[in-house]
């Protein structure tokens, strides 16, 4: 799951750094993820994992690190990403 999260961040996060250079706990906003890009990351994660983020998760803190995103996805019951 971590690899897929990193792939989504690389494709949709508009990050100025290589996502793979960041630890799972690194603050993505400090690393250059903008709030608006985090919305795109959220929508791309929904597509990749076939889940929907509920209202209570629609906040910046849900996407502040790879680990935080993984926690949110696990809480939503996500497992393997959707293929194709």
């Amino acid at each position: 799951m971590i690899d897929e999260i990193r792939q989504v961040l690389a494709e949709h996060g508009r990050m100025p750094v290589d996502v793979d250079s960041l630890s799972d706990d690194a603050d993505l906003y400090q690393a250059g993820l903008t709030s608006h890009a985090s919305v795109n990351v959220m929508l791309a994660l929904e597509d990749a994992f076939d889940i929907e983020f509920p209202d209570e998760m629609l906040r910046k803190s849900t996407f502040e690190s790879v680990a935080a995103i993984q926690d949110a996805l696990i809480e939503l019951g996500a497992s393997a990403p959707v293929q194709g």
Partner: protein
Amino acid sequence: MTHECCSVVVGADVQSTAEVAESLRAYGARYTRKVFTEHEIKTAGSTIPVAAERLAVRFAAKEAVLKLLRPTTIVPHWRSIEVRRQQGGWPEIILTGDAAELARQRQIHHISVSMSHGGGVGFATVVAQAGNIHEGGQASD
């Protein structure tokens, strides 16, 4: 009895119009419903170029308000900060939910906002008076 009064708090942010347009094209209503209120969507216009400009300034305003509220443990979600267009066209900030609670804790009762767009970005500045604020964003009782 001593009375420690207020601090002026300010927030500002900028948002690329092109990025908003790209999100509108890629995700449409899924994107707008995640971030914007019904009022904001209704007043944004129906064409992507116009909506992108209007939503970019509204997104900038939401982020500017977050900077002003200085959230620590509670980070309000985007729809709890609404830019409402008043009669005459002037914008007003309406807080609900976690954002309203955070403002209450900081003794912020009214937020003034100014927004503009041009050069490919939307820009917003918000100003408010807050109560006796200590570092870390918590108002004292």
